């Protein structure tokens, strides 16, 4: 007959439910078995953050009504980005003339961060030179990785809350990586954590 289950009545200290710690055939080799000390449970330390810090109205709005969400018939550069872990997808179409981004659009599917970021990106990069585009991407990366807002650009700064969610930084930069790759004539990017 098996020992009666102990699960119905946990022992003091929460240390219960142990039905057979040692194979019975060698149990006699442990005459001095002692209970383990009970260790207090850790408390998760990251402070609570209001969701509206991550999902600023700019992000929710750009996700619901993404700007420049279309194929660009005049595009001469195209690049796609995808995040294999979560499945975010963005394709960026760019019309480059000389060293200037004359027009830019995107299509895609994914989380609000990835889609809103691509939407804001197209608004920011249209009309910029390639060098200006690189500089702006650098500023955006600082915002999403360090959380330091840029007072002069409230739409980009809306993404500052992302830095508290390291797993989501790659969502925010996906469309930007695709755009920069497109202007450099590189076809595809796979997201990596910043």
């Amino acid at each position, binding site marked *: 007959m098996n020992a009666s289950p102990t699960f119905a009545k946990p022992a003091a200290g929460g240390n219960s439910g142990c039905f057979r710690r040692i194979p019975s055939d060698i149990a006699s080799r442990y005459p001095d078995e002692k209970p383990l000390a009970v260790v207090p449970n850790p408390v998760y330390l990251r402070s*609570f953050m209001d969701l509206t810090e991550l999902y600023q109205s700019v992000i929710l709005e750009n996700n619901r009504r993404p700007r420049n969400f279309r194929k660009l018939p005049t595009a001469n550069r195209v690049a796609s980005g995808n995040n294999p872990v979560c499945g975010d997808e963005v394709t960026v179409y760019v019309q480059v003339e000389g060293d200037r981004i004359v027009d830019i659009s995107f299509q895609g599917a994914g989380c609000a961060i990835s889609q809103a970021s691509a939407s804001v990106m197209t608004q920011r990069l249209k009309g910029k030179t390639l060098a200006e585009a690189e500089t702006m991407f650098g500023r955006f990366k600082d915002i999403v990785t360090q959380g330091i807002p840029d007072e002069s650009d409230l739409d980009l700064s809306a993404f500052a809350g992302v830095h508290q969610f390291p797993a989501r930084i790659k969502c925010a930069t996906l469309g930007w990586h695709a755009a920069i790759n497109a202007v450099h004539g590189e076809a595809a990017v796979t997201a990596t954590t910043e």
Partner: protein
Amino acid sequence: MNMPTTPAPDWAALRADFPILDQTVHGHPLIYLDNGATTQKPRCVIDALVRYYERDNANVHRGVHELSYRATVGYEAARARAARFVNAASPDEIIFTRGTTEGINLIAYSFTSQLKPGDAILVTEMEHHSNLVPWQLLARRTGARLLFVPVTGDEGLLDLGNLDALLAQKVKLFAFPHISNSLGTINPAAELCARARLQGVITVVDAAQSAGHLPVDVQALGCDFLAFSGHKMAGPTGIGVLYGRRALLEAMDPFQGGGEMIASVHYEQSTWNKVPHKFEAGTPDIAGAFGLHAAMDYLDAIGRPAIAAHDGKLAQDAFAGLAAVPGIRLFGPPGERGGLVSFGLAGAHAHDVVTFADQEGIALRGGHHCTQPLWRKLGIQATTRASFYLYNTPGEVERMIEVIRKAAVFFGG
């Protein structure tokens, strides 16, 4: 004759066995609903690991000293326990692996010399990547074809109308999940194995989502192979089990070469140890086996039928409650199901839903759940999944539904 009655488990008391659950996340009591990815561990499993390392740690099957003896006896006792856990005919039919994925890869690799161009491997459209990609690799190595049992649609059932015709297409191996990790569907494993056996097809059951939830009896199922992971059934990560019928194991090539798996080694060639050791090259996860042993004892003291009834009921309640949320699209069968629910929410991507729920202390999974081809077929990029285990409560399900409702408003606005 009166059968002895088993008292109903005291689920609230069992919950106290899991130290990790006693914490707050983002200011809320933790509600852990990502059990399909991995389950939490009861104190007895944690103790088993600690005690092994504090008292018994030594390599197995090598030494003659006391600690090595204890480690070996404990490791082999875990193997015998695993054999009883799935009702294998012998402990020799139990191979310790790193988990379900390694178990399936072992079969796929070791069958390389037994397949030829024109042969076929049959899987289903609901496979986890780990029960698809190893077969793709085997097909590429051997020139065999991959065939698929279709999934009906959002209700997520296997369409078995053409199964016998599919099996007749020179199929050598038929691999399928016992419970779908994405849909919650409980597949009729015994029927599938019986129909395969009629045509001489070898069956592989992916039991990752079932072994810790349902009674699993390999002889009743009539399967040839069955793989599962310790960490999805209250055991440690890094240890899993592959059951294989002895005659098949003996005919298969080894998977990895190294110590333990050999009988004798010469510079030019070697001979193999007998099964199961032929498939366990190198030092195994000995501590993991001790921990898994404790987990199997724990689950069977509660009773897997009771666990299945408990988390299946939670999943059905979640399915019914979520159905009333505006914009929801639910996947999997509406009736009997495994302990999980997958859904899409109009206007809110799964990762946003998961981040939202996390801030409320609720751990969910969002994404493709390693079943990308299935979601492509169903026309959805990602879903949110709530998966349950023995320590989850009806109150947690209610709170999860309330938070999903809030998320729908927040993102859909």
